[in-house]
């Protein structure tokens, strides 16, 4: 994978972000940074507002506060390219759409039903090899396993080359070896391409192992820091009801 350093973009600065629904604050004045080349994990109990926060950062929900993309000196760099891998992809599994169709449709304007797209397909095949999904391209999307589907979704989020990658529980319901493979891939991407990665995860074991920074949420921000700092904090133990030693296992 080539080293594509983002032009000047260094971090996403979330300041005083608030999301209200029906007069109730679902996210209340949350501030944190997502740095380039780092995996920032958002953790919290169910209903803590993690997905809402991601969608607010994506610009899908109206929110108070600011989300700015800044360079090294804190100056705004304007719009950046964002890749998004959704939490659970609800779709018609009997649909005759191959993984290759799906990925090509996101890359070219020319209808994927009319040609095989020689040149674009060649580029796709190259990227597919890098992501280890070459053998999936000709298979119908609905026939892929959870892990395979997530890799295809990741490939989709990686075009056009993102500066910020947002993953919403990317490996839920996937076996452990596939989970490790997925995280290794994410780490490789953030290191080599210097992408900023924000991820919601319930799998605290993996967060501890792979995240560079952790944000503990429950509508408000409770704690942030390195995984060691957050997992040993009083807030974490209180939030997850852990008495005594913290085992850091999946909840």
């Amino acid at each position, binding site marked *: 994978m080539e080293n594509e350093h983002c032009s000047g973009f260094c971090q996403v600065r979330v300041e005083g972000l608030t999301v209200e629904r029906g007069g109730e604050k679902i996210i209340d004045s949350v501030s944190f940074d997502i740095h380039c080349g780092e995996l920032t994990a958002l953790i919290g109990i169910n209903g803590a507002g993690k997905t809402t926060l991601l969608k607010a950062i*994506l610009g*899908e929900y109206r929110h108070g506060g600011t989300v700015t993309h800044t360079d090294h000196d804190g100056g705004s760099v304007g719009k950046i390219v*964002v890749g*998004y891998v*959704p939490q659970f*992809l*609800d*779709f*018609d599994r*009997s*649909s*005759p*759409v*191959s993984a*290759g*169709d*799906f990925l*090509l*449709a*996101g890359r*070219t*304007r*020319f*209808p*994927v*039903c*009319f*040609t*095989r797209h020689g040149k674009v397909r060649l580029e796709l095949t190259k990227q597919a090899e890098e992501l280890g999904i070459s053998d999936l391209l*000709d*298979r*119908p*999307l609905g026939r892929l396993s959870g892990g395979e589907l997530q890799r295809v*979704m990741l490939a*989709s989020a990686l075009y056009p080359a993102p500066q910020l990658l947002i993953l919403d529980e990317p490996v839920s319901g996937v076996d452990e070896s596939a989970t490790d493979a997925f995280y290794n891939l994410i780490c490789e991407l953030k290191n080599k391409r210097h992408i900023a990665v924000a991820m919601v995860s319930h799998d605290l074991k993996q967060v501890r192992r792979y995240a560079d920074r952790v944000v503990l949420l429950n509508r408000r921000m409770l704690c942030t820091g390195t995984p060691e700092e957050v997992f040993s904090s009083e807030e974490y133990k209180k939030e997850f009801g852990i008495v005594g030693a913290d085992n850091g296992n999946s909840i």
Partner: protein
Amino acid sequence: METVYEMMRAVLPFAWARYDFMLNALLAMLLMSPVMGILGTMAVNNKMAFFSDALGHSALTGIALGVALGVDNKMLSMIAFGVFLALVIVRVKAAGSASADTVISVFSSLSTAVGLAVLAANGGFGKYSQYLIGDILSVTPGQILLLVGVLAAVVVIWALIYNKLLLISVNADLAASRGIRTRLVEDIFVVTVAAVVMISIRWIGILLINSMLILPAAAARNISRNSRSYTGLSVLIALVSGVSGLLLSFWWNTSAGASVVLVSAVVFFVTFIFRRR
């Protein structure tokens, strides 16, 4: 037009090809069925079979509207009402207050009832019953030209929105996160379907127009693994059913729309048996 007839007769040395109206009908079918085959793929993918059925029924209100307003060309009032209804259904569906099939059913019933009530006033529904069954043998050279335009327009629209529609059909939220204006793309699609359905009704009939749209795609879907084979097979099945149905109707002396739908229904069941597992 005579030149076209002569050329067709040169390659079709059959008894039925002696009649101009059969050649007109054949040309119309060759133009109309690929359009149905193409649009049907996405109508089926987006679970819109019931939606397009409601559109067909709403043609009655479209005709009634034309009669009430004194519009000579009923096709125009049908298209106008069809487009209006399609956009309304999409919006009510998006509001999500009732399930989609209930919403569609309400609009379908309402537009059928309004159309029937107006057209049957003074006991005059008889003269509109041709719209229920349709008559492809009545197609004129001018209308064939219109169908050439329709086919060209649909291919252009497809070239512009197909990939976006495909992403939306997989997951609308994901498509939106990629910057696709999902509402606009869906609107363009339903307006196109509404216009095509309304234009074709006079030849296929209100009762069967939806089957022409849905059956070829449903049959192709049984045996397709990707978008290319799906679209290709759907168009092929639509063409084969369209042409063979037309000829069968000539030999059996029956409705062309019915014969076309019978052939595509047979194709559907055959592909269902051999569907990919």
